[in-house]
């Protein structure tokens, strides 16, 4: 603890005692001072709200993994310019718009 703070503590205590004697509203001031001192020692604490929020997020990720349903941006999708049309046997076929028709097999000459 810094030396200047140590020398100030007695003065702070005297001021607090005077405030308590002066008016009941000083109790609220004392409470604020207590909270301030507490924050000095707990400023590195991870709050309950932070913990619960992170845990809730982790649980949601676990639920998503179990469901197997990921956001659309995480899915592999066709390249731009690719259309999907119904092919033979009503099976969807993805072909590029500019795709050339497949070469025709040479006919056997009889």
């Amino acid at each position: 603890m810094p030396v200047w703070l140590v020398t100030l503590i007695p003065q702070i205590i005297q001021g607090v005692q005077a405030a308590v004697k002066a008016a009941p509203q000083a109790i609220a001031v004392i409470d604020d001072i207590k909270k301030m001192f507490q924050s000095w020692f707990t400023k590195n604490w991870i709050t309950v709200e932070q913990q619960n929020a992170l845990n809730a997020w982790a649980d949601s990720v676990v639920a998503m993994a179990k469901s197997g349903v990921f956001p659309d941006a995480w899915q592999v999708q066709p390249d731009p310019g690719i259309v999907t049309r119904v092919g033979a046997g009503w099976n969807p076929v993805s072909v590029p718009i500019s795709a050339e028709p497949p070469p025709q097999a040479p006919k056997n000459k009889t």
Partner: protein
Amino acid sequence: MTKKFTLLIALTAALSLTALTACKTNLAPGGAYNPSVTNSAGVVTSTPDIALYNADAAFKTAYDSLNLVFETEYKNRDYFWKLSPDIKHTLDKIRPEAQAAVNDYAAARTAYKANPPVVGLTGVNAVLAKIQQLLIAATSAVAQAGTPLTNGPPVTPNP
């Protein structure tokens, strides 16, 4: 746009990779990672799990960063396609691996919470390292494509 996006992703990736080394060390009692238990004698005890908290926090950061890359490419697909088709192709290779990493993290975390002393956090940390590697790869895919501010637009052949 891509330059700012790349810088944002790089910064987030750096924060994600340093999350484990720059973490707070105290968990407030009563939270999900430091539950308070009162025994029959009225004595309150807590069992903080700061290691799991740090792992979850780092995973969340990496997940959010990776999601940002995927979402931005998905919502601006035509723009990035004109920059370079390799951006989408590279991210399409990363997407299935990212899903697998999320599945593995869920399984490892569930196993750990069922029996922490026995299971340990080795599996969780391994998956965390994996998703951080995927984030670096995804960020590199966007950064290497170039922008009109650096390498200029892709060269188009003369008609």
